């Protein structure tokens, strides 16, 4: 959904923005993002996402038109700081409730595909 919106908006990019355009994403970059997100991508998907993700970057790249050389980087968009909570316990969820939405459970545990973290033997 978001991607579609982004593409439509991207079509409206001004000529100036096109000039400031970030280099299009490569297939390798898309594959890498897929790996980092633990998502397997088919060849067709890699092609499609290369176009779509490039469009999103173009859209956001519009911000590059602004001259921000004299502007301090912001840590946060809200003019707030030090929002702190007292260290007081509150009742949360029972295990049954916590596990109710899990694709798979095993007793009181979430159940996930086997994770091997043995690595390469030295």
């Amino acid at each position: 959904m978001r991607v579609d919106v982004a593409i439509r908006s991207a079509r409206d990019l001004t000529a100036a923005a096109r000039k400031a355009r970030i280099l299009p994403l490569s297939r390798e970059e898309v594959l890498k993002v897929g790996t980092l997100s633990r998502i397997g991508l088919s060849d067709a998907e890699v092609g499609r996402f290369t176009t779509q993700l490039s469009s999103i970057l173009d859209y956001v790249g519009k911000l590059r038109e602004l001259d921000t050389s004299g502007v301090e980087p912001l840590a946060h968009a809200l003019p707030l700081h030090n929002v702190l909570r007292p260290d007081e316990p509150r009742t949360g969820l029972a295990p049954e409730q916590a596990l109710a939405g899990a694709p798979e459970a095993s007793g009181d545990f979430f159940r996930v595909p086997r994770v091997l973290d043995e690595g390469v033997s030295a």
Partner: protein
Amino acid sequence: MTAADLLPTIGLEVHMHLKTRTKLFCGCPVRYDARPNSCVCPVCLGMPGVLPVMNGRAVELAVRMALALGCAIPDLAKWDRKHYYYPDLPKNYQISEYDQPLGIGGFLDVETPRGAVRVGITRVHLEEDAGKLMHDERGGNFSVVDLNRTGTPLLEIVSEPDIHGAEDARAYAEALRQLAVYLGVGDCHLQLGQMRFEPNVSLRIGTGPDGKPRYTPISEIKNLNSFRSVERAVVFELARHRQEYVANPAEYTLENLGKETRGWRDDEGVSFLQRSKEEAHDYRYFPEPDLVPFVPDRAWVEAVRATVPELPQGRRRRFISEYGLPEYDAGVLTAERGVADFFEKVAGLVKDPKTASNWMMQDVMRVLNERKAGIADLGMTPEALAELVSLVKQGAINRNKGTEVFGKMLASGKPAGEIVRQDGLAQVADAGAVEAFVDQALAANARTVEDYKGGKKAALGRLMGEAMKASGGKANPQLVREILLRKLGG
């Protein structure tokens, strides 16, 4: 460059759970013995639409630790999202501090057999712990996850590569634990996973043509959870680096091979290469939009600084200089804050630090060691011990009876004076009565008396013992000795 010139160069990342009642961003209790997935809520389960709210106590404890380590507290700290996908991390990102941590640039002085070593502290920051992932023991093709630990406040302390040996790495880790416990910042129970270590190990291999030091590749050893494994893993890794470097000095360098992540198999005592770690940019850090920055008020920082008690090293030195305690005793009495506080209370009440130290070392520490208990579980107040020490000092009972009374106080919870009265343990210091005990001993041990007169000075101790026994252990030993010497010499 020979193998002997290779300088071990070690930095340590230490993670510790903070002593809070609740998690970092939600009110779920921090518990270690709870039913799996019973200390969770939508926030720490990473449900969409929830809002984390920072635990003020966790920030305070983090700043207290940072101050005790001599860190500066910058004017702004912020949190960032660190992205990676793993089943124990329900949000698929960890909230951590990337480039603006709570504390920067401190140090810790560590006692080693070769004297004090100063280890620089790069940074101290506050982040959240992940859940626990366990592999199915029955060989099933799945793993299980308990998210009770998810979101537990975790303090990360990163040292400079100032450590030059495995023993020192261990000593540094132990000193950090002692400090955190002293400060009340964490309990640091290793068996509960409240403290974990990641040494970065390499060897300095002299200087390059540019005059800058060169190193073997850096090995980051992940997730060690005992002091022993820190020491063993570093020893192993240093030896492995030395071997690799000697075999191939041109290739085995940091410039060529960079940094690698290794695991540690404690049962086999070997490290092993793990999947190449994602680079910092692969974590796609960005400022956490759900948490606003922390801008410490300077008066507040000073108030936190005021809660930092006298630290173990300084206190140890003061016990030596102010109370005249031997170095060893001062070390034992300051190893734990509770013991040091207890001792100082007793010393103040009896106005005699050396005698108070003697009681702590001989009686209190013996009982704690036997019971493997902490001072809080002694079952005796400093005031109660001070009463007993005073009774001995005043000569109401002798020192040996004092130890007996100490045991009875622990067993019954009664005050020393009452036990002395009820059990008739008061010291016999009446010269006539003591003389009678001495006479009894001399009469019953004619052979020993002959031995003494024949020049065996050790026989005096035996006669002392016999006379004390005759008194039921209650005679004033000083008086027994005086009368005995007079009779034997006369």
